[in-house]
Structure formats: C-alpha cells, structure tokens
C-alpha cells in the first residue's frame, strides 16, 4: 500500500500563521462588532495565527496593545467604533510603538481615509466584506512574507 510519506511534499505547505520557529504570530483584533471579530478570528486561527486578545473599541485597543507589547505581532483595526475610532487609536499606538504593525479593516473604502491611515503608519488596508484569501494575503504581506 502506498502511503503519504512515499510522495514528495510539494503540495503541503506550512500554515501561514506560523513563524519560522513554529510559534504562531500573535494578533490583537480591535473591532466593535462581535460578528466581525469572530470572522477575523476564524480566518486567522484556521491558518495557525493566534488571536491573543480582542478589543471592542479604540480606547480598549490601545490599552491592550500597551499591555501586550512586545508580545503582539499584528493589530487588525476597525475604523468606525464608539468611544475612540480606529484612526485615533492607530495614531496612539504608532506614537507608543513606531514599529507597530497595524492593518486597518473597514467597510468604508473612502480614498481619503485609506490615505490618511497609511500616512499615519498603518501597514495595509482591507475593505469589508471580508474575503478569506484577501485577508490572509494582506496580512501575510505585512508580516513580511
């Protein structure tokens, strides 16, 4: 009987969420929607990423980042949130850690907003509805693959 080990491992690939050393990338998800947070969480964990924390508004997001740093590799940031919106939270996180890797996730694809976020230091921008492939691609790019 032929078993899996007999074939070369061309089709197998390592899950994207794992670093070279085998540990998962740690992600902080900031979004006020339980549904979106769940969706992002599912996409990420299915590829081996680890969601270390979730925040439901900008203020909470900044606090959690400060607490977790340096044990967080990436932040996904929603733009429209109560208490503190994503752009303001982005500013604060960048001020705290200029090497922070933040990817904006928003339903609003307004050119101005995208430009503003990128200028403030966001590494990338994803417009909802979330497409699994797109999400993984963009996050992968940011994490330097």
């Amino acid at each position: 009987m032929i078993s899996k080990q007999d074939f070369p491992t061309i089709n197998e690939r390592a899950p994207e969420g794992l670093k070279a050393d085998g540990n998962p990338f740690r992600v902080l998800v900031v979004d006020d929607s339980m549904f979106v947070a769940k969706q992002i969480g599912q996409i990420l964990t299915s590829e081996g990423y680890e969601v270390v924390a979730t925040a439901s508004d900008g203020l909470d997001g900044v606090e959690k980042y400060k607490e977790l740093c340096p044990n967080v590799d990436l932040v996904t940031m929603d733009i429209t949130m109560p208490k503190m919106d994503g752009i303001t939270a982005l500013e604060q996180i960048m001020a705290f850690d200029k090497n922070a890797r933040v990817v904006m996730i928003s339903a609003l694809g307004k050119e101005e907003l995208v430009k503003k976020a990128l200028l403030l230091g966001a590494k990338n921008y994803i417009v909802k509805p979330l497409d699994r492939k797109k999400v993984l691609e963009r996050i992968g790019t940011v994490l330097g693959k």
Partner: protein
Amino acid sequence: MRVEYINPFVEAAYNILTEVLGGQIKRGELYLKSTSMPVMGVAALVGLAGDVEGRVIFDMNMDTAMKIASQMNQEELKLFDDLAKATITELANLITAQAVTKLHDLGFRFDLTPPALFTGENMEISDHEVEALIVPMETSQGRVEVNVAIRDRM
C-alpha cells in the same frame, strides 16, 4: 431625496446582499413613504451625517433575520442572540458604508454613525414627517427593505 443619492444605495444593497448571502437577489420597485414606518420585526438603523442628515433603516422580519445571520455565520443559529444581532448590524453597516463610499466618489461628503438594532413586535419608527425612499430587496432568506431618509443641510 436627491436623485444622485438613490443609485449608490440601490447598488450597494444589491452588491453586498449578493456577496454575503449568495443566491439570487431581486430588487423590487422603489417608492416613497411619508408616514411613520411600521417595522417588520428587526430593524437596523445607521445614522448619516456630514453634508446631509438622515438615516438608513434595514427592515426585515425575525425569520429572515435569523436566516441571514445563519448564512453569514455559516452555521445555523437558533436564537436571536448577541452574535445574530451583531451579524445583522454588520450587514447594515456594510451596505451603508459601501453606499457612502460611492457617494464620496461622486463628491458628496457623508459619514455614518455606528448602527443600532431594534427588535420587537408591532414596532413603529417615527421620524418627524420625514419622507423616505424604500428599496425592497427579495433574497433567498426573505424580504429586506432598505429605508433611506436623507435631507441636505440647506
């Protein structure tokens, strides 16, 4: 309602519903409504601000809401719990946001407020004598009405 605002909402509703629900989406005939609006059971309301003031309501009955939430979560939800509510709210957000983005590209500066979700029997949403555009959308999960009332800041 200003003519230029109509298409962005119609298109956004069609696009988003097609993308997240799958299945055939059919748009019904648009019409204007003036009196206070009875709500079918579940209504998500997104506020609009900026060059205009107004709101968008996504109206559907509970059965449709449950089916849509289940479809979007790719699992059968049994209760209209926090997750289901967040899902419907997100749908409202997606449609309104896409419409606002299109309007932005046309030169109109709108912003949207975080959505609010209302559920209940025999509810009515009364805006003080505001005229609303109704865009009925038929989905495989049931009927969703997009109810838009916008006024230019004069």
